[in-house]
């Protein structure tokens, strides 16, 4: 994809800094797929073709190149031509991967430019899982199409799915309007309809695992057919709305659609993506958000919403690295299945059991990285109100509640004891059991000494990760603390009023 030949590029907020000066477009994909041969022929023969792949090594670019071709014999030239015509990059991996940890992406950039390293490690916190699309020229199309069906499945709303099936099929009228014949496109519509049928069947059967959808998108024929359907709809939509798109494409719209949209493997560009969202996706009620990973300033990827619908029912989130699209997922809202709510968990409202893959609290990396922030009473007062969750009061006989073994975090390596709190670079969270109810709340500045029989420190898995130790989540103050706002919810609550006369008593 060549952004540079899109004249309007600088008008769009997501277009700045779209090329890494010292990384080839596909270096990211390259490192993922561990294929050093991937783009070796491209820098020699590519002259800004519309695609990284076969288009970039076509006849014309070779003929017009500045090489002195006269020194080559006709036979040699023909041989090279044949090689270049038949060149296909050896891209590894499935068309759509299973959900994986975004840490894998962060690892790819660990030794890259510091901005990219920072942004990807932040991304791994805000969007802990991702799906990698195969970089075969269809990644953007595939990410959107897969994200669309995946969200439909996740919502499990049969009425919505039926409505969407009807809506998508009715879009065939766009195809008719621009002169496609139904016997040419019906097999593509059939493939899409088949996915809808699969969704309905799976939901009716109570299937929760979405691997059937991943499988369908990894079958070459179905994948191609669905994407061709979406491509044709997008092209037709653009041709029927020239006033919206013509100014943004560097050639007549018909030619643009014929060479960039309706082909088999040409990559999606911004205009095409916007048209796909406008024409095919947006009416579903889904929002589409792109998170741009580039070297612009800041320590997080730059989000950009492609849809106008404010109150969307679901959001398809794309990760864009120049020349490549993947899918991203926010932390999944996990249901706390533990029958006994740990006192501390209850205090901290809806924390689910610690799990590297499911951090259900809002990890704000910026705030988390400020030491002592959560100790600051001013911040604590601004924190969301405590959940009035059923709290089992601590047994008065014992000042400390002893956690059951399964509630205590077990270190991954049994032989090594959990690191002592003093090793933590940031102040440890005051995750102790509540003090005796009768006693005054201990001031923050004078925490009880940690002795061997002292209160339990609950270690979470993130503590074990050296990279993340600076972002150790910190709980809000405990129940009897003056900073606890839970008592505001008691209707009998009355704040203590200080009277000048009181001091004389």
């Amino acid at each position: 994809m060549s952004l540079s030949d899109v004249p309007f590029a600088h008008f769009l907020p997501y277009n700045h800094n779209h090329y890494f000066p010292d990384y080839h477009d596909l270096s990211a994909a390259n490192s993922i797929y561990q294929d050093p041969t991937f783009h070796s022929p491209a820098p020699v023969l590519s002259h800004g073709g519309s695609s990284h792949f076969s288009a970039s090594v076509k006849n014309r670019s070779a003929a017009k190149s500045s090489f002195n071709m006269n020194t080559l014999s006709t036979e040699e030239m023909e041989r090279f031509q044949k090689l270049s015509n038949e060149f296909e990059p050896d891209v590894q991996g499935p068309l759509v991967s299973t959900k994986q940890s975004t840490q894998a992406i962060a690892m790819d950039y660990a030794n890259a430019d510091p901005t990219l390293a920072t942004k990807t490690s932040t991304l791994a916190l805000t969007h802990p899982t991702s799906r990698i699309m195969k970089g075969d020229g269809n990644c953007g199309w595939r990410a959107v199409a897969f994200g669309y069906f995946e969200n439909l499945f996740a919502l499990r709303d049969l009425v919505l799915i039926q409505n969407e099936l009807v809506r998508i099929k009715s879009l065939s009228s766009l195809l008719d309007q621009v002169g496609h014949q139904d016997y040419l496109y019906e097999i593509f519509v059939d493939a899409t309809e088949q996915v809808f049928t699969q969704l309905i069947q799976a939901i009716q059967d109570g299937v929760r695992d979405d691997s059937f959808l991943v499988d369908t998108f990894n079958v070459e024929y179905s994948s191609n057919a669905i994407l061709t359907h979406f491509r044709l709809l997008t092209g037709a939509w653009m041709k029927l709305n020239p006033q919206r798109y013509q100014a943004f494409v560097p050639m007549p719209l018909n030619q643009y659609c014929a060479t960039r949209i309706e082909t088999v493997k040409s990559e999606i560009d911004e205009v095409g993506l916007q048209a796909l969202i406008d024409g095919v996706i947006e009416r579903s009620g889904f929002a589409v958000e792109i998170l741009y990973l580039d070297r612009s300033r800041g320590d997080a990827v730059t989000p950009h919403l492609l849809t106008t619908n404010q109150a969307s029912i679901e959001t398809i989130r794309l990760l864009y690295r120049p020349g490549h699209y993947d899918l991203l997922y926010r932390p999944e809202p996990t249901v706390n299945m533990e029958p006994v709510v740990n006192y501390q968990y209850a205090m901290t409202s809806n924390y689910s059991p610690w799990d590297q893959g499911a951090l259900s609290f809002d990890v704000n990396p910026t705030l988390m990285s400020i030491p002592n922030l959560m100790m600051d009473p001013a911040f604590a007062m601004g924190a969301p109100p405590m959940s009035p969750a059923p709290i089992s009061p601590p047994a008065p006989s014992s000042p400390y509640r002893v956690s059951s073994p399964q509630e205590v975090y077990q270190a991954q390596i049994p032989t090594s004891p959990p690191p002592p709190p003093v090793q933590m670079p940031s102040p440890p969270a005051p995750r102790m059991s509540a003090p005796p109810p009768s006693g005054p709340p201990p001031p923050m500045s004078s925490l009880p000494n940690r002795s061997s029989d002292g209160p339990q420190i609950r270690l979470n898995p993130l503590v074990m990760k050296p990279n993340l130790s600076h972002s150790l989540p910190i709980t809000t103050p405990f129940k009897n603390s003056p900073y606890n706002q839970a008592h505001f919810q008691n209707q009998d609550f009355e704040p203590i009023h200080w009277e000048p006369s009181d001091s004389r008593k």
Partner: protein
Amino acid sequence: MGSQKRIAKELAELVESPPEGIKVELANEADLYDWRVYLNGPENSPFHNGTFLVKLKFPNEYPFKPPAVNFATKIYHPNVTNDEKGSMCLGMLRPDEWKPSSRVVAVLQFARQLLAEPMPDDAVEGRIAEQYKNDRARYEEVARDWTRRYANEKA
């Protein structure tokens, strides 16, 4: 598979209303993916009065990959390889320019049109392309001669 359904419909369309100068049949009744096409040389070309047998092979990935076009009849043309394969691969027939929504009839019309108007800049036979550009009369003479000698296919 969808490709079979689609090829069958395209074949039916071509047999029902054949375009000018083009006749299509299956090489083997049992195989939808292997066609024999008889092209009549266009009037305003040195191939006029010749009938050329063209083999059209659909890949399993059709329509996501283009059909392969091969001249079984020897032809003197800058865009057709002068070997036993007689392959023609340019324009809409190239995988990166191919559109799954293209019709086979368009492919065949494109091939026939190419007989009337060669594309010497995209030639596979450099020598014939040179001659076409620099010595059109000689090119037409040889092409006409080859047409007389070889292009006598009976549909």
